């Protein structure tokens, strides 16, 4: 009898629904999937997605077809050339607005401009709302399940690894059900920002995210944390709320920046690369604190230092709560032309920007990790960073840390970078010598180590209380117990748990004072087939509270172990059923 290998199911619901370039959480999910597949034997790692309230196996054949379809499309050159290039939706809207402003009579321009500005704010708010939920548009075609089955995909000892945007999906109940069936769930804690700093979120989401983490702690076998800071924050939440004391483990995130590929850089980027600039890679939102960089630049300009200032480049989408800041930047005559925002850049452009930047900055008010700091260091860039949250974990002693609300200090340090070549060179040399980038293989190896520990852990005895965990046809529930009511029939049935192949001992305890002479029949089934059947007399009241101790064998990892106890005559009050492994099966 050989024990089957546990399957590691990676929940790829987030990335399967994502149709933009993979960043942040999506990238973690994708990279882990790719690298874990390489580290485990064939077929031990499988993908699943959440659909109609269950996890189903995901075989992305449609994706492959789509790629093939695109490839074919590229080859066909028969389509007529377009007169104008296709713009992104946002760029198109901006062009329409500019066009409108250009053609309205001069008298109406101030009014039109104001109207367009407020319309833009409204649209940004709507967009930010969508961004906040982090749920990308669903590509329906990609969600077509490869396998349509109502049967659970999980068998005994399987692991479900879920590291996506899980707070956006109603996994909670299913995770709990799976946990009760002994499926081990390994989840991820990126940060607790919505709980710790709700003011930086679009609405009060404390209760929602607290619930998410309370449920996660309840249902997870292990929560992977992306930094010591996130782990600390999570443990504090668990302490404050009395949630389950779940195991946690910090794992390193890959910080390798994609290499330059054959994608083309736009003219705008090419022009930018010709001059010195300071780079800030991040979504533009309140928490990321772009405001302080603008203030620092404003201060430096006011001191008459505009001429020596390099451009400040923000790379990232516009999030919420920054309309006023962006308007200030647009209108401030002092900083005019110095601060540039780039969006929708490709990997080649991003890499070129990193390579050419004079230095990188990261003034965020709080982070669960701070990947851009790691990326900057991996590329040997001098970095000025906020000292909040996990950022010192990322930057170690290779980064200049600045209090994120101190505009004067940011101005001072930026000026130092510009003026002091020696300082710059020394910092860069120290980074190149001491910073070891983490590649995604290392990330996956750390996760594998944690998963293997779970896979190889000894079988934990399973306890079931009749009154809470089983059902009855002829008895009544009395707290933890099921009591018979003077008739013959099915007294207890249930369990419905998974169980690995092996030999086990079943112990049933009852209330001896409730016993009345008679007999009962017990049957144990795995996948519906009987593995053990016995008939026994009810022991006398003077015996202790153990009704029965019985061995049984499970040949193959089972998705569903069930138990039935028929009372033929007499009376019983069943309290607890305990299953202990007595003989291990070789792996």
């Amino acid at each position, binding site marked *: 009898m050989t024990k089957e290998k546990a399957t590691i199911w990676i929940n790829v619901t987030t990335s399967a629904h994502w149709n933009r370039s993979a960043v942040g959480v999506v990238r973690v999910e994708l990279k882990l999937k790719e690298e874990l597949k390489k580290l485990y034997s064939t077929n031990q790692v499988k993908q699943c997605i959440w659909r109609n309230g269950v996890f189903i196996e995901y075989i992305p054949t449609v994706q492959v077809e789509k790629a093939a379809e695109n490839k074919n499309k590229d080859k066909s050159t028969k389509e007529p050339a377009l007169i104008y290039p296709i713009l992104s939706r946002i760029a198109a809207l901006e062009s329409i607005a500019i066009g409108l402003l250009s053609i309205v009579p001069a008298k109406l321009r101030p009014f039109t401009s104001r109207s367009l500005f407020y319309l833009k704010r409204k649209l940004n708010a709507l967009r930010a709302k969508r961004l906040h939920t982090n749920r990308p548009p669903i590509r329906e075609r990609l969600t077509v399940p490869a396998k349509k089955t109502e049967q659970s995909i999980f068998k005994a000892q399987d692991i479900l690894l879920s590291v996506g945007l899980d707070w956006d999906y109603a996994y*909670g*109940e299913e995770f*709990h059900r799976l946990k*009760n069936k002994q499926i081990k769930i390994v989840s991820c804690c990126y940060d607790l920002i919505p709980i710790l700093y709700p003011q930086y979120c679009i609405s009060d989401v*404390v*209760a*929602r*995210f*607290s*619930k998410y983490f*309370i*449920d996660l*702690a*309840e249902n997870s076998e292990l929560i992977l944390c992306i930094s010591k800071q996130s782990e600390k924050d999570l443990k504090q*939440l*668990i*302490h*404050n*709320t*009395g*949630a*389950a004391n779940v195991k946690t483990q910090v794992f390193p995130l890959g910080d390798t920046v994609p290499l330059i590929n054959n994608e083309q850089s736009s003219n705008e980027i090419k022009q930018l690369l010709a001059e010195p600039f300071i780079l800030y890679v991040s979504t533009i939102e309140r928490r990321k604190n772009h405001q302080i960089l603008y203030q620092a630049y404003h201060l430096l300009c006011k001191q008459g230092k505009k001429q020596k200032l390099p451009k400040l480049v923000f790379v990232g989408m516009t999030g919420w709560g920054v309309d006023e800041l962006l308007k200030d930047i647009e209108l401030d005559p002092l900083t005019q032309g110095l601060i540039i925002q780039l969006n929708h850049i490709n990997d080649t452009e991003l890499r070129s920007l990193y390579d050419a930047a004079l230095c990188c900055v990261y003034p965020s008010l709080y982070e669960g990790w701070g990947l851009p700091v790691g990326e900057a260091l991996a590329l040997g860039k001098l970095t000025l960073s906020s000292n909040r949250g996990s950022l010192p974990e990322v930057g170690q002693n290779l980064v200049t840390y600045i209090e994120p609300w101190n505009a004067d200090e940011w101005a001072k340090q930026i000026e130092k970078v510009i003026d002091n070549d020696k300082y710059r060179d020394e910092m860069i040399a120290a980074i190149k010598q001491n910073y070891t980038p983490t590649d995604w293989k290392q990330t996956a190896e750390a996760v594998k180590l944690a998963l293997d520990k779970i896979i190889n852990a000894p079988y934990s005895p399973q306890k079931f*209380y009749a*009154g*809470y*965990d089983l*059902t009855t046809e002829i008895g*009544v*529930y*009395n*707290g*933890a117990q099921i009591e018979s009511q003077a008739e013959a029939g099915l007294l207890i049935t249930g369990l419905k748990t998974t169980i690995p192949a092996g030999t086990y001992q079943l112990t049933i305890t009852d209330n001896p004072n409730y016993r009345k002479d008679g007999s009962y029949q017990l049957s144990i089934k795995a996948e519906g087939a009987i593995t053990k059947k016995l008939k026994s007399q009810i022991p006398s009241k003077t015996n202790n509270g153990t009704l029965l101790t019985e061995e049984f064998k499970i040949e193959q990892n089972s998705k569903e172990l069930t138990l039935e106890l028929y009372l033929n005559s007499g009376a019983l009050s069943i*309290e*607890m059923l305990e299953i202990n492994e007595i003989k291990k099966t070789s792996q």
Partner: protein
Amino acid sequence: MNILVLSTYPIDTPRHGGQIRVSNLVKKYKQIGFNVEVAGVLGSDLYPKSDGFDNSPSIVELEKVISPSFLMEDYAIGRLYENNTKYFEKLSQKIKATPRIIHVEHPWLMPFALRYRKESTQNIKIIYGSANVEHKLKRSILTSHFGNKETEEKVNLIKAAEIEAIKKADGILCVSEGDVKWTKEYANCPILLAPNGVEQWGTSKAGSAEANNIVQRHKFALFCASAHPPNVTGFFEMFKQGFGSLSPSEKLVIVGSAGAAIEQSAELNKSACLSERILSTGMLNTDCLAALLDRAHCIVLPITQGGGTNLKTAEAIWAGHYVLATTIAMRGFEQYINTPGVYIADTATEFKKALRHIMALPPLKLKEKEQKQRESVLWNSTLEGLTGYAKKIESSLND
């Protein structure tokens, strides 16, 4: 020997703690051999009409005594029925048999009792039943509605009423050691410690079916409480800032009017997972409550304010399950702290952590000796000393 029990609530169908205590005192006095008559004034319109009780006076009348009368209704009733002859006569006429002993529960009707005694031709002894240190409890309730100065003024009035009751009583019953300690400072007579207790209950088939219907197959912790503000305040103080103590398949069952008050509170949804884990039953019949008490895995007593002893604590102890309580909730039952199955936690984090720990334990099975020890919370035991005490007061009538 006639004994009159004066109260601001009727006891025909005892529901809240105060009613249950008076009801058991009446039973005890009857057992001792007294002819007991119960009379008083309904402290609220919500109480049903009852023989011997005058209806709750209108707010207009109460405001003549103290304005605003909000949260001071009991105090205002006491002064109204003392000083306003019309009201004094109304209540006096309710008393059918001339008493030789008057038991006044709470200090409120003490001014009436004192005038009644003064105007009576009989030698009457008065027993003051202190259910808690009233002014301390009132302070915690008043502070959330009034400014400091106004609160202190009101608290001082109540404290003065309490001290007057203590000083002028011929006998005093207290519910806890703490209560005794404070009362002793002003008392001119011996004090009897007569903690709150509980009556043995049995479960019926109908009650069990009803209870099972409510809780289904959930493992649950039980919280029995009225909508008395300290109960609701304590609940939120202990379960604020996220409630992770229970798994999704476990419930916190709230029995009594506290449930509605908790569900209507804005605090409920501020504490993550709390609204999902609670199951509020409202008021239940005694059979169903008994079955729930039998089936609970744990009984929680998140009481953070108030004096006296909590009847619900006695009930929880007698139920024979795990008890999770604050130190305040264990007032009067200190001897059970550190006994098997009793857990004490005084902060929200400790309380929630302890609840999680308890819910993971196997059901409590008390040894015979331990169950026997819990018997001392039965009314028979807590009011045992009243027989000799009341007899002594009775005999002093001849002095």
